[in-house]
């Protein structure tokens, strides 16, 4: 390992004109390097250092394959931003956002549903105790998600090497998706079971 040492590196930046002579020195057959001007004995030199390996494990770290952000990443970002903009404009041009009559607390609709992402919770309210589902479950869901990273700390990424976490995550995701799906498309007036072909009670 070669270390380049410059003990007085600022000297030649601040006062380059003060040095009429640039001393040079040659060590170990290396190239001649100019030292800081006007300071004898502080020449630049190369030093060969021996670094002791602390671990018995041989590190096999190869440099990552990389590409320049400009243009490769920026091109991808620009393309996706353009596509999403087009998708949004076209969708918004043809599909109208829902708007019913003005809110009226005295006029209860046949089906009162929460926004679609909370319909899973609303569905679970019909199975379990309201305190458990309505109050304890949402914080536990988010805390459980956050905890995944602090529980599964092994370096392995393949599914077969982290089965337990996969099962836990799949339960959260598939379970959540299933109850949301049922709440969205299979529930009608009085939160009774309704097949989609009998009537769709779902608004975005």
């Amino acid at each position: 390992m070669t270390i380049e040492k410059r003990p007085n590196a600022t000297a030649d930046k601040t006062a380059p004109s003060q040095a009429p002579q640039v001393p040079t020195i040659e060590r170990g057959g290396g190239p001649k390097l100019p030292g800081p001007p006007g300071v004898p004995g502080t020449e630049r030199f190369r030093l060969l250092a021996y670094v002791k390996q602390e671990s018995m494990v041989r590190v096999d770290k190869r440099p990552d394959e990389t590409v320049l952000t400009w243009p490769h990443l920026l091109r991808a970002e620009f393309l996706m931003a353009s596509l999403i903009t087009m998708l949004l404009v076209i969708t918004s041009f043809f599909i109208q956002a829902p708007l019913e009559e003005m809110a009226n607390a005295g006029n209860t609709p046949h089906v009162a549903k929460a926004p679609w992402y909370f319909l899973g919770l609303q569905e679970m309210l019909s199975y379990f105790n309201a305190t458990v589902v309505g109050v304890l479950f949402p914080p536990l869901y988010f805390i459980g998600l956050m905890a995944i990273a602090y529980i599964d700390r092994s370096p392995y990424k393949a599914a077969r090497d982290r089965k337990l976490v996969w099962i836990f995550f799949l339960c959260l995701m598939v379970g959540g998706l299933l109850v949301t799906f049922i709440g969205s498309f299979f529930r009608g007036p009085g939160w009774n079971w309704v097949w989609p072909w009998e009537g769709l009670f779902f608004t975005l």
Partner: protein
Amino acid sequence: MSFLVRAVRESALWRSLFRQPYPTTSRTRALAVMNNVFLHLHPVRVKTHAVRYTYTFCLGGISFFLFLALTVTGVYLMFFYVPSINRAFQDIQTISNSVAFGDLIRNMHRWAAHLMVLTVFLHMIRVFYHGAYKPPREFNWAIGVLLLFSTLWLSFTGYLLPWDQIAFWAITVGTQMATYAPLASTESGFILLGGIEVGQETLIRFYVMHVIAFPLIAAILLVVHFWRIRKDGGISGPV
């Protein structure tokens, strides 16, 4: 024509805006990223798999882009909306019928909000699949979960603002869950609604949370999220 282009490029104004010529070499491309306040969010070089569409599906980027689109469309809608139970519904109708591009912008805001909930969720699933939450990225995963919560809450608070039957009853049902809290059912309902039922106090609370409080919280979390990606060694590798 070339004289004009050269005159513009050599003008003091142009040179004050762009410190270097159009990036064509590795050096100028690196400088373009480093010297731009927006682009320097990125490192100069990224891992090859990071630019592969099938690796990330751009879900994080799309979510952030939708956040920006929602901010722009939301600000436009704010010019014409008053969070009052006597005016809100009429303002929405006015936006749809009388304001220039109002209907299009309102639709964009609505569909972008739903899409953002979806993309944030899919982004989280993608990150889990690649095991990208593992050390040293565990804190950033936690920030991501908080961002998911912020996204849901932003969408939920915005749901009430049109003040129509869908909005009113969806929020009534959604907020009723909070009133099941043991020992503090009345208090938790009151904190959320500002009263015992959805009304003017609820509308103003939801409006403030939707347009100021949670966009700000989400923006701060986003900054930390992006910063941690850089500090944790960039995007994680394939499985």
